[in-house]
């Protein structure tokens, strides 16, 4: 894809030390860090085809190479992740140049996120968002008892691979509640209900950017994304916050706020 090549070359010439995007290595799409404008690797760069947790990779890169500046090819979800991570002080946006890639209409439909494009689009055409609420609606239609049964059934498939957490761009804790024996009993598969999945859902509240990598990584097809999506809906409805959207607005769960806010909250409930 010629124009991505040009973009990479251009950014590298503009003084970023490296460009993070995908490349096709003998038919395998994988993230690659291009550091040299003239490297033959440049011929292999790819825009789409697969998604990887670029945010997660950048946390390490920015920390490992404190003097370096990076450019990265971002989709809407990657951008949201990086924005939220910067609020959580995990990435330094000043050392980051985001090159926007809009998801194709087909990708957008398949994915169903609320914003399948970044704030600035360098590549591709802005496609209509096709937010998917089917699962949420299905669950909400159920009675409480049925809901519980439904989720228990879903979670009962969990093999505790921890993939949802490992792949999540927003998970950076050095010590994870999911590995706290008080909360998640070691060696028990599937994990007890509600501990594992509810704890993760709660930690995702005001954090999850709806990239869907968790669900993609889940070998048991647990509808994690719908669970976390619902948490974001709750967050937005109750505390008026959506993760990853505005860079200067922080999650209400990360500051005390004013008495008025709380009184309002109390009145509304």
């Amino acid at each position, binding site marked *: 894809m010629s124009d991505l090549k040009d973009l990479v070359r251009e950014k590298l010439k503009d003084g970023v030390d490296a460009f993070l995007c995908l490349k096709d290595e003998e038919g*395998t799409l*994988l993230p690659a860090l291009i550091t040299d404008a003239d490297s033959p690797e440049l011929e292999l760069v790819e825009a789409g085809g697969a998604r990887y947790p670029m945010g997660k*990779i950048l946390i390490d890169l920015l920390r*490992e190479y404190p003097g370096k500046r990076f450019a990265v090819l971002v989709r809407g979800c990657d951008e949201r992740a990086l924005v939220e991570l910067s609020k959580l002080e995990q990435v330094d946006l000043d050392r980051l140049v985001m090159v926007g890639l809009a998801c194709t209409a087909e990708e957008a439909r398949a994915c169903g996120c609320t914003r399948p494009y970044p704030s600035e689009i360098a590549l591709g055409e802005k496609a209509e968002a096709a937010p998917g609420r089917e699962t949420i609606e299905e669950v909400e239609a159920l009675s409480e008892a049925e809901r519980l049964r439904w989720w228990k059934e879903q979670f009962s498939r969990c093999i505790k*691979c921890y993939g949802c957490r490992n792949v999540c761009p927003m998970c950076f804790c050095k010590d994870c509640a999911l590995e706290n024996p008080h909360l998640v009993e070691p060696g028990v598969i599937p994990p007890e209900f509600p501990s594992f999945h509810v704890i993760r859902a709660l930690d995702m509240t005001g954090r999850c950017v709806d990239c869907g990598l968790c669900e*993609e990584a889940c*070998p048991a097809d647990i509808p994690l994304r719908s669970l976390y999506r619902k948490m974001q809906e709750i967050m937005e409805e109750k505390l008026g916050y959506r993760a990853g959207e505005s860079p200067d607005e922080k999650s209400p769960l990360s500051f005390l706020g004013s008495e008025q806010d709380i009184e309002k909250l109390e009145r509304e409930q």
Partner: protein
Amino acid sequence: MVDNGKELSYRLVPSTCVYCGTGCGVLLEVMDGRVTGTLPQKDHPVSWGALCVKGWAVHEFVHSERRLTAPLVRSGGELKETDWDTALAAVAEGLSRVAKEHGPDAVGFFASARCTNEENYLLQKLARAVVGTNNVDHCARL
């Protein structure tokens, strides 16, 4: 932030998980020449971007202190490092001696989940066709 002068060195190496025979596709994160992490290979025909808890941790043993890096042969009661030819020769000599003295069924072959199906096929072939015993089993039974 001040530059720590480190040369940028980061790449992902496509590989296959060695923990079992399934053969899931992994990408090993290599930073500054050290394997630092694992990602599932999205478009891998076997695992399609999913891994189990072992696969996600497959990078962890790479730099382990306790990892064997060369074959060891016991001589005079203690293990000594040696080259593969010597090691394999010792194994072949030992096996054929036992088979000759006590018959083929005195030998057992133990296959590993860490090997590919092809490797396991070859092992049982060796057992049955070369040594002549059906004593073949695999670690998944343990």
